[in-house]
């Protein structure tokens, strides 16, 4: 169980923004290409299939929290007690964001 919990599943803020932007680009691009290709061969079904392929690719690239979306972690200030003394971090407790 510890092994499973140790798998990092989060994206940092920058990674979330990049994942969203990338998925929008991929789906828009495939949609535009599909529209042009479908118009050329006069088959709207091909347009839909190409858009579907774009959706699958975008899903694969941006839904799982790949490590490339974790490159800019937030630099948190160390925790302090009321006297301003830095509390030593507990290594076993990994606080999940949100």
């Amino acid at each position: 169980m510890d092994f499973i919990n140790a798998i990092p599943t989060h994206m940092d803020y920058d990674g979330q923004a990049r994942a969203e932007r990338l998925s929008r680009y991929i789906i828009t691009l495939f949609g535009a290409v599909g529209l042009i290709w479908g118009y050329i061969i006069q088959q709207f079904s091909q347009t839909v299939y190409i858009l579907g392929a774009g959706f699958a690719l975008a899903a694969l690239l941006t839904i799982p929290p790949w490590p490339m979306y974790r490159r800019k972690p937030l630099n948190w200030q160390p925790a302090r007690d009321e006297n301003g003394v830095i509390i030593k971090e507990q290594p076993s407790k990994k606080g999940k964001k949100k």
Partner: protein
Amino acid sequence: MHTVLQRGNSILAYALSVLACLTFLCFASTVFLDYRTQAKMNTVKVVVKNVPDYSASREKNDLGFLTFDLQTDLTSLFNWNVKQLFLYLTAEYETPNNELNQVVLWDKIILRGENAVLDFKNMNTKYYFWDDGNGLKGNKNITLTLSWNIIPNAGLLPNIFSHGQHSFKFPMEYTTSRV
């Protein structure tokens, strides 16, 4: 965007929005096309009988029988926004009772990819040509028209009238023998 489910929801919604846009563009690319074309029609044998209409009033009404030729090439009507054509042959005529009578005599479905070059000779009608009275005997002006209903992927379902029609007259006498 911070969980797997949120990201999945977001890109699915976006992909479906794009699909809606593409469908609209497909519709927009075909909405102004002219779907009319030439069709040649002719009647071969025309008789009229006076028989009881058991499906309605049981009174004796005029029943027309005809065979027809039909020649047309509908290949040019098909494009990426046409799934099928529903062809129908209509007879239009005027009687003392009604200013306009319209009777569908025959129809046919043509799917995209099927042979759309039609050349029928001496075809029987598919449906009975009943008049609601005695308006067929000796009627001098019955007009056959071919029309089609376009079934698209997205957009309107227009009924198009072909260019070309054929007018004929029914005989002055009832036929009593079997036809």
